[in-house]
């Protein structure tokens, strides 16, 4: 079973996304901040990462950049998640190394559709 790493600091959202992803037939790895995200990505080598942009330590963009520097995960798909998009957020996410982009509030169909594009 493919594994998806969700980097999200809000417990409710983490549960919500985890629930949707599990329903979709994936295993879930949870990280609650940027550091944990980078560590788990390196150690667990998931098949895809859902990356919240607003994180308590460094943001999702920085986390993505750090993961992109890891030699062990050259092509891992990373999908950015953010609240009501700000100007240029999509561009910033792409520049940081994200493959896709989902706007919150998330819709179960949208999120699954986006995941299936990469897996």
């Amino acid at each position, binding site marked *: 079973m493919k594994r998806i790493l969700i980097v999200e600091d*809000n417990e409710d*959202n983490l549960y*919500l996304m985890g629930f949707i992803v599990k329903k979709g037939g994936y295993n879930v790895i949870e990280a609650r901040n940027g550091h944990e995200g980078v560590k788990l990505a390196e150690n667990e080598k998931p098949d895809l990462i859902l990356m919240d942009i607003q994180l308590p330590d460094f943001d999702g963009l920085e986390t993505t950049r750090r993961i992109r520097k890891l030699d062990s995960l050259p092509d891992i798909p990373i999908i950015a998640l953010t*609240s*009501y998009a700000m*100007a*240029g957020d999509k*561009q910033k996410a792409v520049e940081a190394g994200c493959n896709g982009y989902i706007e919150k509030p998330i819709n*179960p169909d949208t999120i699954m559709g986006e995941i299936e594009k990469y897996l």
Partner: protein
Amino acid sequence: MGNVKILLLEEDAQEALNLRKTLESNGYIVLDVATNKKDAITKAHELVPDLILIDLNPEGEFSGIQTESMGIVKEIKKFDMPVLYLTVHSGNVEIQKAQLTETHDYLVKPFDSAELKNAVEFTLYKNRIKEEFEKSENFYKAIFEHTGTATVIIEADTTISLANNEFENLSGYSREEIEGKKSWTEFTSKEDLERMKEYHRRRRVNSTSAPLIYDFRFIDRKGIVKNIHLDIGIVPGTKKSVASLLDVSELKRSQEAVKRSETKYRGLFDNAADGIFLLKGDTFIECNEKALEIYGVTRDQIIGQNPYLFSPESQPNGIKSKEMAIKFINKALDGYPQHFEWQYLSYDGTPFDAEVALNRLKIEDEYLIQAIIRDVTERKKAEKLEKENIKLQELDKLKSMFIASMSHELRTPLNSIIGFTGIILQGMTGELTEEQIRQLTIVKNSANHLLSLINDVIDLSKIEADKTELFIEDFDLSPVLVDIEESFIDMMGRKGLKMSLEMPESLMVYGDERRIKQVIMNLVSNAIKFTDNGDVTIDVMENDRMVEVTVKDTGIGIREEDQKKLFQAFSRIHVEDQPIVEGTGLGLYLSQKIAHLLGGNIYAKSQFNKGSEFTFIFPTKY
């Protein structure tokens, strides 16, 4: 006067003897007799006689007036002594001429003793007169030379007949070049010439009929103009005048410099930004224009007054103004500059705050007080404004921070609400009853409404604070429009409306995709909301580098009186007998603001009960 000593020039010994006898009988002393030219010169030189008597013998040594004998006359003249010639005829032109200009005389032979005496006395008299005259002339000449100013004698015909050394210096010409050759008119500037010629003419008629002292412009040899102070006097009994010329160019220049300097400082004084006063004791004796302006007075109303008359009875600290003012003035007079704040009353009784500096000035052995007064009312106002401004800026920062935190904090719980309702409604947690679906749909719609309200408010505050960041990029508008159409398909279907979209296959735009999409979606969503039957059409075209998106509906339309309220914030147009349509009242207001931000606009056309048409235009290149 002692006995007159005479040197006799006579060749003939007998004649000499006779003459000696005659002279001595008349009381004269005959020093010697010279018998030839050489002898005569030597003796005249050695003996220094009072008179030389010379017998002009046509044949002898002292003869031939026309030829050789003139030699002796010439030589004798060199001694500058009175000479009496004895001659046989009076027609001798040379002698006549000599008689006129020199103190020489002649006696025609034969003559008697009395005639000889008369002739001798007359010759001596002429010499005395000449000497007197020469003395007097030398005296006046010395005065003329040493007047200390350039002085000239002017003839009736304007010729300068005499000029002194100073005039040579002034004019740059030597007196040989001037005297009898130049007219004063040649030294006079064009501007002054006619007037002075007229004076010259009138003065010759009546010496008092023209000014005798005045200034004019003198032109020297090099053409340099000099300011001359002229003083003219008519030489009594003549048509000559004596003119003394004083070069006042330097004086005039320094006077002008003083005047300029005075004007300059007066200018500085009057144009100073602060009021400046001079006080003698506690009385205003002088002030500048600004001072008058500050107090709202005329010069007459303030000069001679005391400063405390322009102050309230007491200063804000409770001390009497007069008491305090005198204390400050006295300290300043003692040499301690004073600097303090003071409350004044202007002439019309308005109090104003000022900063005052008092300094002691010494002017002509007298101590005066210079008071500099700066009206600080405006500054105090500005300081107050500045404080308020800082407060406002802090409030603004607080507002921005509040909004930033709102955007995150308010939306995070909404994400859960919308997300979980979505999951449950999709049956991912199990089967739902009709009732549950209906209620959960209400929850989901309310949450969505709340979310859009929050998003609108955040957008709005950003736009109003000029903090909207646009993200400008190249994109194709056509697929965006397809997206929009698709996102409304459900809503249209539920209301039984038809939608049509007319657009080019591809329309490249350089702009903010998300903002453009936001505006179009707002217009389409409005059209659907206010239309119950018929259709909504979206027409897109490019026209002269502008994109025109027209959204047209067959809805209830807008009454004319309501149309002007369309783009106002929170204006919800309600029509009686119509259900209230959900919305934030911010949609069009925000869309219009965004359109402006993108360099475009939104125009509305509507007919009540027929439908509305909204056109959003924006440039293809931001």
